[in-house]
């Protein structure tokens, strides 16, 4: 086993590797993004790359609450796109941000199904015996999950539906549960329902009067503040081209 024949040769590089943790030179711009942006932001990043081919960008998706915890625990993200502006504001209070949290879109939630005609479904229909499993995102840390819960409470069906709920880690996970048929119905982001794979099926747009607004905010983190590329990308979000993409995915743009 030649690997172990000369352990001395391996020790040096290993030691160096462990000692160079401080060096992160040449890092790409890392974006932490709420899962409702999974497809919209991909398109935006692709567009940005065409204009700035030298900037390396990586996007990591998850629930906004988890992303916030990760940033507090030192995760190396430069920009954070949250599904709820309350999270970036929390980060700001902890002194972990560079820019002021800013609203970039208002989200909507829809009822979507792979097996039923969701266009004809209402929140009240979720109580029917024909529907046994309803997927939503985890309300504890995913804003889209929380809004789904609020909407069901407002519609007076929460108690009846509660026992049928399955919880996704984030809104994309909840959508995937519905897409796979594991859950007959999902309450998911409109932006995801507009994604071609899911757009094959109709959806029912939930009245936004039934829940608090999904005011989506973003912020450049303290770490990203040192990175001109991160600030440049943040600026790009305010352009019309980006707005067009966001609107195409069903987002309402702020005034």
């Amino acid at each position, binding site marked *: *086993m030649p*690997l*172990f024949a000369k*352990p001395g040769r*391996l020790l040096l590089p*290993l030691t160096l*590797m*462990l*000692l160079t*943790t*401080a060096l*992160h030179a040449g890092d*790409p711009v*890392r974006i932490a993004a709420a*899962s409702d942006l*999974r497809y919209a932001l991909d398109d935006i990043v692709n567009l940005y790359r065409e204009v700035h081919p030298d900037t390396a960008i*990586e996007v*990591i*998706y*998850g629930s906004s609450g988890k992303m916030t915890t*990760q940033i*507090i*625990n*030192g*995760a*190396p993200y430069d920009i954070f796109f949250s599904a709820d502006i309350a999270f970036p504001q929390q980060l700001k209070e902890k002194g972990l941000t560079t820019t002021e949290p800013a609203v970039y879109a208002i989200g909507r939630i829809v009822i979507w199904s792979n097996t039923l005609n969701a266009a004809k479904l209402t929140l009240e229909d979720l109580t029917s015996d024909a529907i046994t499993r309803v997927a939503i995102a985890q309300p504890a840390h995913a804003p889209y999950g929380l809004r789904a819960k609020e909407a069901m409470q407002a519609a007076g069906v929460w108690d009846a539906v509660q026992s049928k709920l399955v919880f996704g*880690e*984030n809104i*994309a*996970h909840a*959508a*995937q549960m519905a*897409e796979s048929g594991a859950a007959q119905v999902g309450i998911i982001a409109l932006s995801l329902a507009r994604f071609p*794979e*899911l757009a094959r099926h109709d959806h029912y747009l939930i009245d936004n009067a039934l829940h608090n607004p999904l005011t989506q905010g973003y912020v450049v983190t303290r770490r990203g503040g040192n990175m001109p590329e991160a600030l440049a990308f943040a600026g790009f979000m305010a352009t019309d081209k980006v707005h067009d993409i966001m609107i195409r995915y069903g987002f309402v743009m702020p005034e």
Partner: protein
Amino acid sequence: MYTFGPAEWQAIDVTLRLCLYTTIILLLLATPLAWWLAKGRSRGRDVVQAIVSLPLVLPPTVLGFYLLVAMGPRGILGKTLEDLGFHHLAFSFEGILIASILYSMPFAVQPLTEAFSHLGRRPVEVASSLGAGAIDRFGTVIFPLTRSGFVVAATLTFAHTMGEFGVILMLGGSIPGETRVLSVLIYDHAEAMNYEAAHSLSLMLLIFAFVTLLVVYSFTRRFQVVRL
């Protein structure tokens, strides 16, 4: 068949580096530890054996949680490192490397402990009486006679590291090129409904795991024959 893109190659690179470093470091650490467990007479052995075996029964989230707490910028380890001018370890490759070393520890220590116990004390005593010092004895007697134990330990460690998910997701997030290993990428692909990619990566891991176990079992069988 789906062809791998940069994200896949990056994850393969991170995964292989993680597995390789974990295996090498763990064998270096596990060898003296397993020797002590197999040959020592101290009463502390049971305690150490239990601690080493904890990852076998502990949910990965428990280890992930404590490591996150310790390694983050506010944790004992992370804060100390930052005070010394280094970066803290959460959400970094070095962080998941440390987690993997802890998490795969029993898979390296147990086969080696088994092999060393099986070896008995006689060959080592003989070699000492013939003038061989400790390192000489390890190279010319202990290692050749327990080689299969090392092969099994290395293979299991490598494969188990590749199969890690919970600890890495919790401690490492899913940062491309840094902490996004294959198992996490498969999770991401499945969540993104990118089933084709998830399928080809999963199939690859499935075949790898099968071949690994095949190697381990054929070696343990030969091991017994050699010992007779």
